[in-house]
């Protein structure tokens, strides 16, 4: 983590060399997390909620520490992350391909608009009977829910990204006789990449949420299932520990996407130089 912070200036210039060295990013992030945990710790102390129902952070962290030593916990994390990774990957690829196809054709854009808008707000949760009907209570059902929810997130971002292609860049490609595919690969795709990255970041957490929700509701093994079990067993601190673990997974996923982003978007204004000093 610290290593990432060290390399904050990848491309571009440093905004101000004369100013004192900035606090590393990871340290700031840690401070943010500590402030949050502190606030949580104070909630029961100040009597805003009863510690019986929302245990203080310290207690939950202790429960989490206990969990971390259990193989069963890691098996559950493994199950969840497997569904997460497969679902997310399929959704991203599908949305990317369809998004490029639709986004680049004004006809398809208009033709599919109403249908996309109709399908997007259908909650994955409502599709559970259908998913179970199609795939049974196997991982495919969870995958269907994950893919369905993530797909739209990425698709919309891709559509907006495709629309953002610079005229002059596209004209350049056309004048040099780039084929359709070459234009997609060399012009449209890089332009869309920042939008796609945001889409992936959005979808990554939605995939996690749905992996867990699916486990919660369908009962496939994983963290969600563990949460249900802890919940119905009345192990409140244990339940919050699992929720905390979920949140930390989200933070971890974000760290990974940020690293990827730093590599693939090093040329982009958002990464190369901090827009505002």
């Amino acid at each position, binding site marked *: 983590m610290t290593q990432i912070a060290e390399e904050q200036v990848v*491309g571009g210039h440093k905004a101000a060399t004369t100013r004192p060295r900035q606090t590393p990013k990871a340290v700031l992030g840690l401070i943010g997390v500590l402030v949050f945990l502190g606030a949580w710790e104070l909630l029961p102390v100040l009597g805003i909620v009863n510690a019986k129902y929302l245990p203080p952070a310290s207690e939950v962290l202790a429960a989490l520490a206990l969990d971390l030593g259990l193989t069963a916990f890691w098996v559950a994390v493994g199950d969840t992350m497997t569904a997460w990774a497969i679902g997310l990957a399929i959704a991203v690829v599908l949305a990317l391909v369809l998004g490029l196809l639709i986004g680049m054709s004004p006809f398809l854009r208009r033709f599919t608009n109403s249908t996309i808008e109709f399908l997007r707000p259908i909650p994955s949760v409502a599709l559970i009977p259908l998913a179970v009907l199609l795939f049974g209570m196997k991982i495919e059902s969870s995958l269907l829910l994950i893919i369905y929810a993530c797909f739209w997130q990425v698709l919309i971002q891709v559509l907006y990204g495709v629309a953002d292609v610079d005229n*002059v*860049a596209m004209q350049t490609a056309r*004048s*040099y*006789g780039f084929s359709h595919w070459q234009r997609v690969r*060399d012009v449209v795709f890089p332009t869309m990449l920042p939008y796609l990255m945001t889409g992936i970041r959005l979808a990554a957490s939605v995939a996690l949420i749905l992996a867990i929700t699916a486990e919660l509701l369908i009962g496939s093994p994983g963290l969600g299932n563990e949460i249900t079990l802890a919940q119905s067993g009345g192990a409140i601190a244990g339940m919050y520990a699992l929720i905390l673990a979920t949140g930390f997974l989200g933070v971890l996923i974000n760290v990974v996407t940020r690293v990827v982003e730093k590599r693939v978007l090093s*040329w*982009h204004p958002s990464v*190369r130089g901090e827009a505002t000093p």
Partner: protein
Amino acid sequence: MQSENPTSHAGGRTLPDGEALLSVRNLKKVYRTDAGDIEAVRNLTFDLGRGELVCLVGPSGSGKTTLLKCIAGLLASTEGEVRLDGQVITGPPKKMAVVFQEYGRSLFPWLRVAENVELPLKNAGVPKNERKVLVEQALEAVGLAHVPKSYPWQLSGGMQQRVAIARAVAYQPEVLLMDEPFAAVDAQTRADLEDLIRSVWKKLGVTVLFVTHDIDESIYLGERVIILSSSPTVVQEDIVIDLPAERDQLETRSLPRFTELRHHVYAEIQKAKQGHRPEEAITMVAK
């Protein structure tokens, strides 16, 4: 003055059928905007022979860029047509390279300098080692051999513009369209690049249409200069530059004929700016 010069005539010069590589016929382009229609180009007719080097000058906003984009097949004309080798242009033709006026936006920010130059070659299927040589030569020629690994946005304006030129040169096109390609480079570099373009033109026999604002440059560079009127645009004049084929920055520019031509073009542009329109063009509009 116009009559004094036998090699010039109002309206664009046309060639007999089959001789022209590029023919522009009654080209009209109207931009439709929400604030109303803008007639960028009213009526343009001229021909470019194979292997010609023609400069295009005209007041700012007279439609030079518009014309270039129509020729490049990037913009559909409102009326009239552009033919390349007898074929009506509907999309970008093969083996044509364009250097855009907005050089900054025409370079891909996600590619490094060498990669930007290499990309069109790669897409055209040029083998890797050949590509490497072409890219190196082109960057060398524009004086950027030392920054192949930089990103475009790490370069100065003039350097960016030279990358765009290098990309076009490396591509070895048959037709080269350049839209004020030297606007951002200093005088000395400009002179070098002018000589580069002439040498490329001679070596490869490429047909060049070169938009510039610098009157001296248009005369020094071109074999012919087409002057556009101010908007709505027609061809104001089409002049053959009867200077020796071997040109030299100091010598050629000090020739009396050079000065003569320079004054002529300057006067024409001044006329154009004041709204003068050649007779012929007006009759063409009428028919």
